[in-house]
């Protein structure tokens, strides 16, 4: 029983990372109907930026965290402005290829930057390798602080996002844009600028995910492949739903963690994909998805 709990907690922590990346997908998908295949690579860049801020510039973790988030927002907005806006109105496939190209490029460029390179780095976070015993030292549930931070940060972030979308003018404008771009435009919402901000927001979330994940998996150029597991998370939750992304991420993370323990070797890596295939066959719209019907 304790073991099961243990697995669920560590699965939930990884699941939160998937959820954050999936959240990035969902935000962009909702607003622009583009799927950003470079999301995982954005996370990788975030990890590297945080690493540089901490080890090269010697900043404390909190400052580095904030700076990375801001820098990532700028990266996202820059990418939108430079290469994605000119493609506005093109078929979805064009956009997908563009983001795939961006991700491919990012993985190449990162290895050429001095100090970043092809090696794996450790992010020296203050809470590294610490554990907390819940329910008695040595007998209770052991939770590593890294996992706890991920879960707490995700909860806080999702709550903030919820408040942002619910109570701020910009958040409501973003919702309007995602529901109907033309109507939002008629209402005086600067749709293009809102799209740019959404890319910024989504990248910033990915940067946070990168910093949270870095203590567990190290920082390296192929770190972004974790982002591919966020697709199953987003699909399970229903692609256009923010709470869905969170629930989907948690489901994928926990299933993966349980599969790694109870099933033969190898199932851990494909558990997420098996879940998504089952989901696609059984309930293609996901748990929280809206009914998709194609307009002529």
């Amino acid at each position: 029983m304790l073991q099961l709990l243990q697995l669920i907690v560590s699965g939930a922590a990884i699941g939160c990372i998937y959820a954050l990346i999936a959240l990035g997908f969902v935000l962009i998908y909702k607003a622009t109907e583009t799927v950003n295949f470079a999301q995982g690579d954005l996370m990788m860049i975030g990890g590297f930026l945080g690493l540089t801020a901490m080890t090269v510039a010697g900043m404390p973790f909190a400052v580095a965290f904030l700076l990375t988030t801001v820098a990532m927002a700028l990266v996202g907005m820059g990418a939108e402005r430079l290469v994605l806006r000119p493609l506005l109105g093109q078929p979805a496939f064009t956009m997908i290829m563009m983001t795939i190209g961006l991700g491919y490029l990012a993985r190449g460029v990162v290895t050429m930057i001095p100090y970043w390179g092809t090696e794996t780095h450790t992010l020296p976070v203050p809470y590294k390798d610490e554990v907390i015993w819940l329910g008695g030292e040595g007998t209770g549930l052991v939770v590593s602080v890294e996992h706890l931070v991920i879960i707490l940060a995700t909860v806080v972030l999702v709550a903030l996002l919820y408040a942002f979308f619910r109570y701020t003018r910009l958040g409501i404008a973003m919702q309007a844009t995602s529901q109907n771009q033309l109507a939002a435009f008629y209402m005086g919402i600067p749709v293009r600028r809102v799209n740019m901000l959404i890319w910024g927001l989504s990248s910033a979330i990915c940067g946070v995910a990168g910093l949270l994940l870095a203590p567990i998996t190290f920082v390296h150029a192929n770190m972004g492949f974790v982002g591919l597991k966020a697709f199953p998370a987003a699909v399970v939750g229903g692609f256009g739903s923010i709470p869905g992304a969170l629930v989907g991420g948690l489901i994928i993370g926990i299933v993966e963690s349980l599969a790694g323990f109870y099933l033969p070797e190898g199932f851990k890596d494909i558990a997420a994909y098996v879940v998504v295939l089952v989901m696609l066959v059984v309930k293609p719209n996901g748990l929280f998805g809206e009914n998709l019907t194609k307009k002529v």
Partner: protein
Amino acid sequence: MHFIFKTRYEQDISLFKHSGQVFWYAALALALVAAPWLLSEYALSQFTFIGIYAIVCLGLMLLAGFTGQVSLGHAGFLAMGAYTEAWLQANGWPFMISLPMAALVAGVTGIIVGLPALRVKGLYLSIATLAFGFIIEEVVVRAEHITGGNAGRQLDKLMIAGIDFDDGTNYYYLVTFIAVLCVLGVLNLLRSPTGRAFVAIRDSEVSAQSMGINLAHYKTVAFALSAALAGIAGALYAHKIRIITPDQFGFLQSIELLMMVVIGGLGSIQGAIFGPAFWFVVQQVIVVGKDWLPPGLGQQTGLQPTIFGFILIAIVLFEPMGLYGRWLKFRTFLEIFPFYRKGMFKRQKSYMKSERMK
């Protein structure tokens, strides 16, 4: 400029539109036959690779360029073909039978992958292929008694009817012959009702459906054919490279195949050949050019992905029809010189069509 005056209905579906095309394609065929005398052994081996990749890209083009379905797991089909061929050869099957078997196994896998197409479409289908790609890769790693696991699996010399195809020239001819057959097959398919249905699905699923096209059926057929072509290429690839390991068929391979198709030019058979050809030529240019670059830059492993990433982004931004589109523009420029105008191939602006309906 050629003005084709059509006097017979068959002209609409003929493979060659006019005598000029016959001449140039005959010249190309002659050049392909003469290549072993003109090229070094290394260049010939690169040509063989181009031929092999052209077959995969042809399949992917059929799927992505003509049916409008994006596959993010095409390397999985390549793996199915390669490992089927390796296993059958080890069990003493002749190549003449094992090659169609490799295509068949990959094709059946394609049908299975296409099955979610009965329920989902567009983006969701891409994610299903992504998932299948990863699952196939993992299965290949784990099924060690068939695939040799991570250590890889070795293939024996390829002998057909007593002729040694391990030899570079012979193998080049074999690959070229099969590639040409595949191109002709796909060309024929595209002028058949099935091919027309594919294009209709790509252009608008709703209108295709209302014309009586069974979407799920045709999408599954497209997946099966595309996978079968990948299976053939996989078998040829296995014989060329002689030792196959699971990491050759990973997610990156799928992405690179897709990049080749887009760089070549979506929606054109020529693009499926231009893409891999360009890819291998640029690869060679990078290998040669490395020595001239400062060592800090030239020795970087990330140089190649960076360059290809830039090329892809530039193509998507500026030349959505890929290299074939560029060639088309250039040819038009020559044909109607000096009357070429800048806006002749202007991309149509369209409003974003939402897939959601509230």
